[in-house]
Each structure stands twice: as structure tokens, then as C-alpha cells.
């Protein structure tokens, strides 16, 4: 007889799998509180809050944090403008090569970061563009646009095209139609897209490595810090900050678009 109840074995395997995936995250958190600063010894010999204070005092943490926030903010802003415009064009117009162009827009998310990074780096080299905040922003914008684009396209597809015409028919000018009809229907999708884009940019390492030059974003700072023997828990404190800064937007984005089919682009 078939039963709808899962077997005990299946339950144990599933729980085991989930633990294997998520338990290490808890250890990251745990080691932010350990009293042992050189090795990640288990169990921790003692628990302390002092690393939060130490992290706060460390001058080398602040510039990467600022840089990461700045890059993520600018890349997200660029992506929201360009992604929305691209989505609007794609969902309204019918032209030759439309499907191919659409593929080109979403390609950066499918392309390995190493490839994107390498190609950008060599392009910057050929064009004699010195590494700066903007080279990092450009690298991040390539995949941030896709996130916003995917969210906006999915929402526009769900919208009945007639409502824009209905608005004009009822006497609204183009601005009023945008303000009262398009934006309210697109708003949550754009916000969700923007949050996901911000989260992706904030913890991006691969493309950044190729486009940052001597600058350090927060994830790159963490990567360098792991090989240092001293004050290891500080890295874990920063990890908690990064976790919060990326997880919260994704969670909010999830709730904003719940019920829709558009929690797209979580793959990078």
C-alpha cells in the first residue's frame, strides 16, 4: 500500500542534508564569540563579545565596507534604470532579433564569473582604463541588470497590456499612466529586483577580483584575512555583518514577490 507519509529513512536523509548545508553557517556565527583567536578550536574554550569591539576599532575594515556599500548601491541603481528600460522595450516592441537580444541581456548571469572578470579586465587593459570604483561597478552591473530585468519582465508579462491603453483612454497623459498604473504594478517587482541585485553585488568576489586592482571590497578583505594568524574571530564578526546585509534584502525580496513566479535570478 502506498502511503503519503515519508519513510523514516527519507526523513533522516533530508534532515541530514539540510544540516550539512546549514550547520557550517552556525559555526561561522559561533566562532565570532570564541576566546581563542588563532585556531578554530572546537568546542570554543570560552565565549566573549570582545571581537565586536575589536572589529569596530580596526581601521582596515571600514574602507572595504564603504567600498562594498558604494559599489552595491551604484550598481543596483544603474541596474534598476537600465533593467527596467530594457524590460519595457522587450515586452512592448516586436522587432527582428528580439529573442537573441533578450538572450544577450540575460547571458551575464549564466556566464561564469571568471569569464566575465577576465574579459572585463582585458577590455579595461586594452582601453587603458585604470582600476577604480567604477570598474568594479561596471563588473557588478553586468549581472545586477539581469536580476532587475528578469523581475520586471516577469511582472510586465503578468500585467494585461490593456491597462496602459485603458489609462490613456480615460484621459491620463503619459506621466499619469506611469505614476498611477505602471509604477504601482511594477513597484514591488523593481524593489525586489533591486534588493537581490544589491545582495549579489555586496558579496561578489570573482568578478571583483578581476576588476578591483589594488582595492578591497569587504568579501575580498575577508578572503585575505583568513590566511592571517591573528584576531581570526574578527573575520567572523564581519561575516555576520555580510550575512545580515545580503540575507535581509533577499528575504524582503522573497516576501515582496511571493505569489508571483518571479523570484528570479538567485543563481549567481
Amino acid at each position, binding site marked *: 500500500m502506498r502511503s503519503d507519509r515519508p519513510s523514516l529513512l527519507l526523513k533522516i536523509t533530508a534532515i541530514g542534508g539540510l544540516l550539512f548545508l546549514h550547520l557550517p553557517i552556525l559555526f561561522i556565527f559561533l566562532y565570532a564569540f570564541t576566546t581563542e583567536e588563532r585556531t578554530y578550536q572546537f568546542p570554543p574554550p570560552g565565549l566573549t563579545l570582545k571581537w565586536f569591539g575589536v572589529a569596530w576599532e580596526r581601521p582596515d575594515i571600514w574602507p572595504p565596507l564603504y567600498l562594498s556599500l558604494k559599489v552595491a548601491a551604484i550598481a543596483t541603481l544603474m541596474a534598476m534604470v537600465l533593467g527596467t528600460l530594457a524590460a519595457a522595450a522587450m515586452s512592448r516592441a516586436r522587432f527582428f532579433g528580439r529573442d537573441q537580444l533578450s538572450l544577450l541581456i540575460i547571458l551575464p548571469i549564466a556566464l561564469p564569473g571568471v569569464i566575465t572578470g577576465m574579459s572585463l579586465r582585458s577590455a579595461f587593459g586594452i582601453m587603458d582604463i585604470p582600476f577604480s570604483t567604477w570598474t568594479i561597478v561596471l563588473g557588478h552591473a553586468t549581472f545586477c541588470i539581469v536580476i532587475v530585468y528578469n523581475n520586471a519582465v516577469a511582472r510586465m508579462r503578468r*500585467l*494585461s497590456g*490593456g*491597462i496602459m*491603453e*485603458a*489609462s*490613456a*483612454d*480615460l*484621459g*491620463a*497623459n503619459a506621466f*499619469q499612466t506611469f505614476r*498611477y*498604473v505602471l509604477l*504601482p*504594478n511594477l513597484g514591488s517587482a523593481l524593489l525586489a529586483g533591486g534588493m537581490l541585485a544589491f545582495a549579489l553585488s555586496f558579496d561578489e568576489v570573482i568578478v571583483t577580483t578581476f576588476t578591483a586592482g589594488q582595492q578591497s571590497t569587504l568579501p575580498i578583505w575577508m578572503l585575505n584575512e583568513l590566511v592571517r594568524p591573528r584576531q581570526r574571530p574578527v573575520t567572523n564578526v564581519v561575516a555576520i555583518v555580510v550575512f545580515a546585509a545580503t540575507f535581509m534584502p533577499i528575504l524582503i525580496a522573497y516576501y515582496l514577490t511571493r505569489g508571483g513566479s518571479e523570484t528570479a535570478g538567485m543563481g549567481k
Partner: protein
Amino acid sequence: MTAAVEFQNVSRHFGSVRAVDGVDLTIAEGSFFAMLGPSGSGKTTCLRLISGFEKPTSGTIRIFGEDVSSVPPHLRNVNTVFQDYALFPHMNVRDNVAYGLMVKGMGRAQRHAKAEEMLALVKLSGYGDRKPAQLSGGQRQRVALARALVNEPRVLLLDEPLGALDLKLREAMQDELKALQHKLGLTFVFVTHDQHEALSMADHLAVFNEGKIAQIGTPQDIYDRPATRFVADFVGSSNVLPPELTRALGGPPQWASLRPEATKLAATGPVSGPVTALRYLGSGTRVVIRAGETEIAALVPAGEPVPAEGEIRAIAFAPQALHLMGEA
């Protein structure tokens, strides 16, 4: 009488496709005008030319005498009930109806009062707080109607307004639309591919074929005296006789139409054939006779003898019942 809408030699071409091709049309103020035709015949494009969502490739369109060729949709005093209703999903019913007044700058209290008035007119009082998604198809249709009418348009355009409704609701809405039009005295222009709907609701209609108007007139004109073979075929229920049959029946060698009500059965005659189908209609029986390639229907009134299937019968009619028409 003033013409509410006037087309002068209007064409709308999309590349090489002549969606609307040299249409002349006058819609009288206060009439209930139907544009009837198969899909792709240009009727919807004509409606969009009136609302302003399409611009004519050539020709002039006048609304109440004013040339509107360069007037964008939002500045035209016409409103549309869209085929899929196109209600704003993020607004409740009241705000949907009040939308046109809101964008014109009317205050909240006043526009909400007007919206409630309109909702009462379409029998949806008390539904103001609902979202469109919480309404049935028929209710959405009424909201779309109220949303258009609240702007006091001089012409109301309806794009296949009843297409998405089931048969029973459709018949009820047909009566309501007709009553509403009568009450408001507005000009209604509606597009449909359903000939029964067009014939029963409109006081004038234009039959479209391949971007051109095949015939324009009252429902009775169209039904009794179709101008072309296409009209007779599309409007249906009339017998369409090819030239050789018309000649056999004593007419000139032309296409002709013959209404089943005017067709009688006889024992012998120039055109005869076996009875292939019988349908009892209550008020009579519809008998179909196969004469060569052509099927001819005759309506035998109740009480008269009905032949059995397979029996040979000839057709007969009063000479004036045969209506000659053009080929195209």
C-alpha cells in the same frame, strides 16, 4: 442629425497589410452602431481609429465634426470598454471607476460620489471596496462600463463587450446594454463577430470584409437584402444561391439570397433534391434540401405536412422573395 463619427476614405495599412482600406462611414448621434465581421476584417482597427490608438494612413476621421486625426487618445471625448475589460488590478472598484475623474483633477469626495452613482447605474452598488480579482466576469464587465461612462463620453466604444461571457449572462447583458443606451441617449459603437448579437442589438450596422465595408444599413436591410454573397454567408440563415440555380429558378445568372421563411416546398419544380435534414423549431420545422452542391433551407410552418428525410422535394417562393446580389 449630427454625425457622431465620420470616416472619409480612411485607410490604415500595416506594412503591406491593408487592415482598413478606404472606409467611408457615418455614425449618427444617439445610434447603437455595430461593426460586424470575421476576425481580421478591420472592425477592431476601425474602433481603435476612433479611440485614437491607431492613426489613419490616409483619410479623415471626424468626431462631432472635429477632425481628430492628430488628437491623441487621452484628449478625445470617447471612452472604450475593452475586450478583456483592462481593469486596474491594484485599485478597488471605486477607484477604477473614478480613475478618469481623478486624472482630470476632481477632488476625492466628489469623484467617489460620482463613482458610486455610476456603480448604482450598472447595478453594482456596494461593490466599491472590492478588487477586480474578486469579481465575476459579468461584474467586471459592468465595472468597465461604469468606468467608461463616468467620464460622460460623447461616444462609447465597446470592443467585443460580451465575448468573454457565457451565453445566459450574455443575453442578459445584451438587454441591459440596449436599455442603458436608450436611457443615456449616447452613441454606442460596438464591435462583434457574432451576427446575432449585431442584428439584435444594433439599430445600424456595418459588415466588414477584408478591410472594407461590404454593406451598411439597418439589421433588416442586412438580413433581408444582403448586398453581396459575403454578407449573406456571414450573416447566415439566408440561403445563398449560385448563379446557375438563380437562373434555373427564372432569375438572371447572378448570386441571390432567399430567406428560409420565404421558401416553400412543392412536389415538382425546376430546382429539387432529397431532404437531407429536419430540425423541429417549435414554431415550424426547418427542412434542408440538397440541390446539386447547394443546400437550401425552407421553414415549414407548424401544422403543414413535413416530408421525411430522403424524399424528393422542389422549392418554390414568391417572385419578390428572391434577392439578387453581387459576388464579392
